[in-house]
């Protein structure tokens, strides 16, 4: 299954070049279906802003190109480049903190000439699985507490910088996804249980000491959106109305009143699922989520057949990032989690996220090469 068996043609010569292209057909098909469904809804949602739509499409093309290129590179190249990439990412995050672009009270963006404005914290979705895989690839299971603590440091430095931006959502998501690498690398169960307890205590402490009023207000609002229906609760209320009013089959493409009349803010970014739910109904959301799970499951299965421990850990870690983001976004949109800034991977508008995700799948594919 590692070669493009799916695309084997009755006329082998016509598609012969595909045999030289290394990629996974099932994974690629799943990704294309998600991208297609997302783009269909996005076209209607951004019909008033063709410039944004063109940018979105261009970045999808860029991401797919990155996927196909990264999939062709040899594993040892990734092993060799990972430490440099890690140091580079930490420096970039530090740079962002001091000289980045401010948006909505946080330093999250970097705006360099000749490069699209991007969010450095997004690349941690790839860099951290790579770095942890790099550190753990020669440490066989079961892992002791010592290695786990080193992993904590590897995670802690960049994630701490993200926390300072501040970006609470990315902090939690990236840290959690990274810990999954440590988990699949074979950390002893006793330390896992210990970590869960520490995490719970840490959460209470963070709540008391570190969270900004803005973050607390988001969490409180999540617990009772009607307490502030025109302020922070607005998103959750309007998002649930959008989903709920969609019904089984939805109002039809482009007919979503919640998004087209601006009741649903950020309809093309974090809350795109609510737009899909409104316009395509439960059928649309269920199909989309099933596709996400399909890609996740396919990726996890691929990780088991990766050529090396480095590849296995990297792949599983990245896929946990991918599906973790997906779940958190979906739960946020349907009111099961507070509103944290988590885009829906591959669908939400936002270039850095799409390119990073597709690039990540390219690396996962590359890990299959022996």
């Amino acid at each position, binding site marked *: 299954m590692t070669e493009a068996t799916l695309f084997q043609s009755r006329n082998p010569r016509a598609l012969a070049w595909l045999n030289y292209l290394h990629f996974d057909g099932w994974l690629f098909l799943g990704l294309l279906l998600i991208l297609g469904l997302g783009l269909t809804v996005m076209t209607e949602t951004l019909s008033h802003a063709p410039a944004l739509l063109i940018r979105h499409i261009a970045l999808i093309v860029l991401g797919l190109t990155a996927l196909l290129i990264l999939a062709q590179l040899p594993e040892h190249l990734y092993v060799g480049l990972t430490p440099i990439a890690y140091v580079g990412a930490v420096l970039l995050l530090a740079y962002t903190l001091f000289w980045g672009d401010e948006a909505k009270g946080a330093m999250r963006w970097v705006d360099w000439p000749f490069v699209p404005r991007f969010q450095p914290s997004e690349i941690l979705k790839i860099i951290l699985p790579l770095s942890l895989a790099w550190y753990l690839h020669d440490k066989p299971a*079961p892992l002791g507490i010592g290695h786990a603590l080193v992993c904590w440091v590897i995670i802690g430095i960049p994630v701490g910088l993200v926390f300072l931006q501040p970006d609470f959502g990315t902090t939690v998501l990236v840290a959690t996804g990274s810990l999954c690498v440590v988990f699949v690398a074979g950390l002893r169960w006793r330390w896992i249980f210990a970590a869960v307890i520490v995490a719970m205590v840490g959460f209470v402490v963070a709540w008391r000491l570190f969270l900004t009023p803005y973050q607390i207000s988001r969490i409180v609002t999540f617990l009772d959106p009607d307490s502030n229906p025109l302020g922070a609760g607005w998103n959750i209320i309007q998002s649930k109305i959008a989903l*709920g*009013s969609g019904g089984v089959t939805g109002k039809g493409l482009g007919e979503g009143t919640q998004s087209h009349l601006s009741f649903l803010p950020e309809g093309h970014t974090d809350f795109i699922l609510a737009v899909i739910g409104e316009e395509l109904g439960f059928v649309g959301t269920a199909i989309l989520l099933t596709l996400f799970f399909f890609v996740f*499951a396919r990726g996890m299965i691929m990780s088991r057949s990766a050529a090396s421990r480095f590849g296995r850990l990297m792949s599983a870690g990245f896929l946990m990032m991918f599906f973790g983001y997906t779940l958190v976004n979906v739960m946020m949109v349907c009111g099961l989690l507070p509103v944290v800034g988590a885009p829906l991977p591959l669908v939400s508008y936002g270039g850095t996220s799409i390119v990073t995700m597709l690039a990540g799948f390219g690396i996962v594919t590359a890990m299959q090469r022996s």
Partner: protein
Amino acid sequence: MTNERNRDTHSFEDRVLMLVLLGFVMLILVLTRLYYLQIFDHETYQTQSQKNRIQVQSIAPPRGLILDTNGELLADNRQILSLSLIPERIADVDAVLAQLQQLIKISPDDLKNVKERIRLGSRHAPIVLKRDLSEQEEALLAVNRHQMDGVVVTYETIRHYFDGPKFVHAIGTVRRITKEDLGDIDNVNYRATQFIGGTGVERFYERSLHGVVGSRSVEIDASGRPTDKQPIALTQPERGATLTLHIDSALQLAADEALGDRRGAVVAIDPRTGGILVMVSKPNYDPNRLLTGLKAGELDELYEHRDKPIFNRAVQGIYAPGSTFKPVVGMAALQTGVTDWDEIIQDDGNFRLPGSSQVWRSWNREGANAGGHGEVAMHRAIYRSANVYFYTMGSRLEVDVIAKLAIDRFGLGRSTVFDIAEAKVGVVPSRAWKREAHNEPWYPGDSVILGIGQGYINMTPLQLATMATVFANRGDWVQPRMLKQADRHLMEITENPEELRVVDTSMEMRSHWHRMALAMHDVVHRGFKGYDQNGTAWAYIGMDIPYTMAGKSGTAQVIAVEQGEEYEEEEVDEYERNHALFIAFAPLESPEIAVAVVVENGGGGSKFAAPVARAVIDAKLITQPVIANRD
């Protein structure tokens, strides 16, 4: 090594499987949640989504029309264009205002006002900068508006009064609804309404004129702005009732012209129906300008002007009736038998109560018969307006008898008008009234001057006209009214025929009424008999009248003249001169019109007020529109 690797792979595969299973559980959880939201609770959210996007806008009903007796329009509605600013769409208010000032004239007051309201008011509601734009201004704005975001031209329907100043006191006006009104009005029906009846007919028939509010459901976006789509539902508003008044435009204009620039009032009533044909009060003002926004200074001037243009003298001005009251006193004397038509009173120019040193004088101290009228009976006492005769009657009559007649028969001292809410009631003094109002007993002297319509008694021009109506009808009182008919049942009124007319059935009084009418006829028509034998008004209006008219002049003192002093018209301040009054009806035999005229500080009634009354009656009886008849 291989063993170790296998163990590692085994552990890895187990844990990956666990994560995939966990992912699957989460997927099921999320799908369950979505199922609950999108299918189980669909109805709830569907409703909320509709509520989000659909806004019910109220549509103000067109206000009912007001027509005169011949169907001519007195009040309708017109659309004006107003220039408004929407603060949330304007970044730099000062810059936009400066830009606008180059296009159209904006007064500094309006400018200051608008800046203040932008500072205090809501950000997305339009704030009116200038009302009633001219076509030229509209064109200028239309060309330049695209450069100025947040500057909008809006339509507004406002009341329009034809010949506004000349009819303003007859039909009243609307005014803008204020915060104070909100507790009194039907908030649903008035949701889109900006104006409410303020005075006169507009006020009395407000509920009928207003109509029923309509509504339109439109789709709005999150900021509350309507989208371009057609309304989802539409209920047309129901136009207010069309009212036809008794007011006769031709007569109203004649009265207005005859009164000219003088302060005063004219009221004319059709004695057969009680319909008010004319209601003029001067000075007046232009209600249309009041609605489209006067400049700040002008409004103050209107309210603070010494001549009170906003004040409706016809129904709210209170005047002593003076000698116009003498026929009433005469009727009281005849009714109670304290005199008859033949009794002669010696009038030497002065009147004294027995045992009193105070002297009441006749009105004509100077001139040909400064020594009084000599031998005077009732008939001559009326046409010569002999004071001493009526001092005597006043002193003979019990005050409460006069009061009873004035109130019951003439409708004085109470509000009898059918449909003018703000009409004043005036005063008909009685013993009880004086005790109540002044905490004093009734003195014989009070009765003496009541005999010539002075002292405590006072009434509105409308009541004077009603008084004339009773004489015209030979004792029958008809309720004065503005409304002639309406295109539907009006909720303000219930017609009770018994209250509309009070007939004097006494056969004995009938002849007194007729003889009184004849005496009043002589006020106007008795001429060429020598100065002291002519009617008081004959020289001024009676010489060339082509119809029969009855009248009575009156001159009401504004300042009290001290004992032994003379009233010199030339020497007193204009505002302290006597008021000139005249009541009249015509034709004598079957009256079609009864008129009351008050000219403030005019001087003598016959000279100054009678010509106005004649002008109105002329317009009614002579200047009828010629209708071509080709049979």
